């Protein structure tokens, strides 16, 4: 049976891994490579590296970073997010070491390019990022470049329905970095059922993870800040969720 996943997230701004609080306040953590290597060693189910200042500043993807990460020879699948402008950007990221890529601003800028990207690298390698909030009994989709919250457009809904993307990353941007902050309504009220969803933003404790992972459409929870406080934090979370359909790893070595 397919397991549900716990994804370790590393947020990068101006080339440094940062702890983010609602995407407006940041604390530096160090080199992204070090945090990614930690998550690899701690057996995260996937690693998401999200470079948050690339789309906003029209910089394109951080190819140098993904190239450095690609050379690490990670044993954990790597997802890259930040600044993807075209099919060519996505293909190059895969060539440099990403296993999957997240499209964000491209959903506003040119949805046909998302389809082109999917055709080249396969839908399984493409994730759509939707920063959402719950306002006035309605789901709102943040255009983080204009800072406007709008309704999810029909074109984005049609793209998701067409299965050009494999999963939707729902970020609770308002509660990101806030302990126990994730608003579960963002998942419950998401208009498309039977779409694999990844929840991210303010997910900090096992009971909250359990509530999310119990939902049929949740394929993974993604955790950022709260992995930074303890060694092997992912394994500790999994120990607390041992009755759920997660992957439990062993550290036994056969190479001695």
């Amino acid at each position, binding site marked *: 049976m*397919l397991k549900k996943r716990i994804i370790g997230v590393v947020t990068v701004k101006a080339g440094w891994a940062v702890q983010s609080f609602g995407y407006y306040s940041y604390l530096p953590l160090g080199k992204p490579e070090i945090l990614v290597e930690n998550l690899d060693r701690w057996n995260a189910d996937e690693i998401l590296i999200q470079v948050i200042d690339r789309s906003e500043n029209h910089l394109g993807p951080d190819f140098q970073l993904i190239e450095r990460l690609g050379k690490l020879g990670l*044993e954990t699948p790597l997802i890259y997010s930040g600044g993807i402008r075209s099919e060519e950007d996505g293909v190059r990221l*895969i060539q440099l070491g990403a*296993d999957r890529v997240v499209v964000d601003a491209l959903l506003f800028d040119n949805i046909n390019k998302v389809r082109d990207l999917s055709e*080249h690298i396969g839908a399984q*390698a493409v994730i759509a990022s939707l920063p959402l909030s719950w306002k006035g009994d309605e789901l709102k989709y943040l255009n983080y470049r204009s800072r406007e919250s709008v309704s999810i457009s029909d074109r984005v809904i049609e793209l998701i329905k067409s*299965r050009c993307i494999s999963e939707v990353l729902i970020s609770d941007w308002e509660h990101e970095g806030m302990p126990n902050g994730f608003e579960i309504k963002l998942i419950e009220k998401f208009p498309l059922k039977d779409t694999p969803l990844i929840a991210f933003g303010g997910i900090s404790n096992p009971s909250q993870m359990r509530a999310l992972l119990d939902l049929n459409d949740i394929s993974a929870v993604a955790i950022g800040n709260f992995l930074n406080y303890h060694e092997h934090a992912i394994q500790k979370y999994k120990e607390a969720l041992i009755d759920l359909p997660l992957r439990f*790893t062993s550290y036994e070595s056969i190479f001695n």
Partner: protein
Amino acid sequence: MNSYSIGIVDYGLGNHASVIHSLKDIGVKALSTDKISDLNAVDILMLPGVGAFPPAMNSLHNRGLVDYIREQANLKRPIIGICLGMQLLAESSFEHKHTTGLGLIPGSIQAFSNLGNHIGWNTLKFLNMESTYSNSKNNDEAFYFNHSFFYQGPSEYQVATTQHSIVFPSIIKNGNVVGLQFHPEKSQLAGKIFLKNLITDMMNA
């Protein structure tokens, strides 16, 4: 394991650092190349894969590797295909359009119903426990999958299956050619143990 070598067939899609890293960890020499002279010098050919079937076959054709790989299979050289690399071993694929594959294992590549994907960690069920890499532990271990299409073909070529929306073949084999739908190089310790057993098995066949 130190005496074995693997040539990763570089057809321009994907990054091979993780495969090389995993192979080195288990004591196998590995190189990534599209040079036939270098590929001739290794024990096992490996076709990795990330991407879609048509551009991958196109790239293999452009590099003059299709006929070479078919010839090597006829010469009984061990060949391992991973993920898309496994799918390329089949006769054809219906990803986006009908595309002819390498044809080393009878069968074709089909989409999951409802255009679904199979992404994440899942287990294998071995249909025949005789091969040394099908040790009992592999039935409990999860491996990383990331695909939208799957192999459909005669049961005689199926070594292991995986349960998703349907049961699909996750390891296929025809003589010295083996295809893995999952990514052992991204499956952490379980993947390395699997690769070690598989390579040992293939080299002692």
